[in-house]
């Protein structure tokens, strides 16, 4: 016998209590501290900061702890917090040429001013499970060298001197802010880059991969990949000049792409660009490839109908918080809509049966 379902409120409270208990796990195991997550799961922290669009390692670590390690959930917590923060002002554009690089590599030149610096990378590790980590307590120590002096110039700058790579139009215009204005299509490059930078790493990676496999193929060389800290400056109205308010770690990738020229452009190299918070190089390289694929129109290239060339497709589906929300909402009750579908299917079947009846009678 049906009794109207009451007690949604109690069910929610109980679910939350159970969730909190599950998050803590076995209490005979020591609890993770936020500082441990920040220091020892730093690449997860970086991803949460990048896609959460908020540079705060402590909050990102807290979000990861609260989300039980579900990074999309952690990104969501950060985004929801971020929207409540007041805007005090805007920083000056950061100068990545001033970056104190801890990693800087070029795939296009064997050596270049500033040198190749491998930095802390998984690239040449053998992916063998290190069972010592299951027990080890000794802190590893790496040898240190003197930091490089002076600026590390951008590799594409050398190509630019010969006019071999297309130059980007310079503009001091304030770019649109995706978090304060609705996305408008067609989007300019600044808006596209903003969207890609906070887009889902997996989605951007797969989109980039699809261009490598021939869907709008445009062979990309990693002209340069650099990771390091840059100062952030802000102009304070009372002072009338910019002061440094802190430092952030960024990953920047510039790709150099083949281009045979078009009706409007001479043969030259072209660029893709990726810039992401933290050490997030898979994302930065992917972003540069997708950026380049999306530029087909402004470079006068052919529309091959590839997914990665389709601005609306890429930008409208890159955000994992939007995607996961809409995807998961289908588990909410839909019995009203389903009921109307039920009635419709029954009605259509009834009509189909009555229509076929005379034949049956014959």
């Amino acid at each position: 016998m049906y009794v109207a379902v009451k007690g949604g409120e109690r069910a929610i409270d109980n679910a939350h209590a159970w969730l909190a208990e599950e998050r803590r796990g076995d209490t005979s195991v020591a609890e993770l501290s936020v500082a441990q997550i920040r220091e020892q799961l730093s690449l997860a922290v970086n991803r949460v900061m990048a896609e959460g669009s908020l540079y705060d390692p402590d909050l990102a670590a807290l979000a990861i702890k609260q989300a039980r390690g579900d990074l999309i959930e952690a990104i969501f917590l950060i985004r929801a917090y971020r929207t409540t923060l007041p805007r005090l002002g805007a920083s000056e554009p950061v100068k990545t040429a001033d970056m104190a690089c801890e990693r800087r590599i070029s795939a296009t030149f064997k050596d270049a001013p500033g040198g190749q610096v491998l930095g802390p990378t998984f690239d040449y590790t053998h992916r063998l499970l290190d069972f010592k980590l299951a027990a080890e307590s000794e802190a590893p120590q790496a040898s240190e060298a003197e930091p490089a002096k002076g600026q590390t110039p951008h590799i594409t700058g050398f190509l630019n001197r010969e006019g071999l790579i297309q130059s980007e139009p310079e503009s001091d215009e304030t770019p649109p802010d995706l978090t304060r204005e609705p996305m408008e299509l067609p989007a300019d490059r600044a808006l596209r880059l903003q969207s890609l930078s906070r887009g889902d790493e997996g989605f951007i990676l797969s989109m980039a991969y699809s261009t490598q496999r021939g869907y709008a193929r445009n062979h990309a060389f990693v002209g340069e990949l650099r990771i390091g800290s840059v100062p952030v400056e802000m102009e304070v109205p009372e002072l009338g000049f910019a002061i440094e308010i802190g430092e952030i770690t960024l990953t920047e990738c510039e790709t150099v792409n083949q281009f045979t020229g078009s009706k409007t452009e001479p043969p030259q190299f072209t660029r893709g660009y990726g810039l992401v918070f933290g050490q997030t190089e898979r994302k930065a390289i992917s972003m540069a490839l997708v950026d380049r694929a999306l530029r087909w129109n402004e470079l006068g290239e052919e529309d091959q109908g590839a997914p990665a060339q389709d601005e609306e497709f890429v930008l409208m589906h890159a955000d994992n918080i939007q995607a996961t929300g809409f995807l998961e909402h289908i588990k909410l009750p839909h019995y009203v809509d389903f009921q109307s579908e039920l009635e419709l299917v029954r009605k259509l079947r009834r009509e189909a049966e009555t229509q076929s009846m005379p034949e049956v009678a014959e």
Partner: protein
Amino acid sequence: MTDQAYNFAYLDEQTKRMIRRAILKGLAIPGYQVPFASREMPMPYGWGTGGVQVSAATLTPEDTFKVIDQGADDTTNAVSIRKFFQRTAGVATTEETDKATVIQTRHRIPETPLGEDQVLVYQVPIPEPLRFLEPRETETRKMHSLEEYGLMHVKLYEDISQHGAIATSYAYPVKVEGRYVMDPSPIPKFDNPKMADCPAIQLFGAGREQRIYALPPYTKVVSLDFEDHPFDPSKADHACDLCGAGESYLDEVITDDAGGRMFVCSDTDYCRARREAGHLGAQAAVMEEEAGA
């Protein structure tokens, strides 16, 4: 962080101002989808973030707020949204349709007719009625501005030629004041006639899709149809088994594993009020017994 750290109804005043401007524009151009800078809310996209933002921008401390999901006040998400505004706005809440000044809804319009002092806020998943005919926003916006709705009529016509009827049972498209084709949100088509000439303000919020649209009071809203295939706001051919209502939208509830089922009002407040007024459905007595046992 304490609740006091948040502004009244959660959103800051600048954001609410931006949303109110979109609402006013929507009311000025009935049925037109106004882009707005939707914010990330502390509940997921798909859970009614558009409706929540519209409610947040609409509520005043004097308002009485009601939330329904699938017609019911006690479904989990309705409970959750009601709690959210109790906590962040401290507004009075009610389950009674005629006592509410702002009603947020998902997938239903209350059975009790709305009045001039009420605002109905719809949660909208996909605001674009043409979306499943044309996936590109750049194209559908063009179609709206040119009033190019042929594709929609062709779709409805194809339904009739294939199935003998229009095979859309919810989110049934409407035309507003003879101009914009509008998605009424996934309400059953049974509810469509209630939108027309309604004394209340009807606001539609789509958070993820960043759109707001609106129907001012007493707006002409016509469900699309053909002269020889007129719109049919059908519902289950039963009366409510609890309150006996013959004119309300019904949910079908499976009661056993031998094909047993019953039909009950989807609008829980309407059903409760009728039962309290002494109306009884076919299985009401059985229910009383079970509840007492």
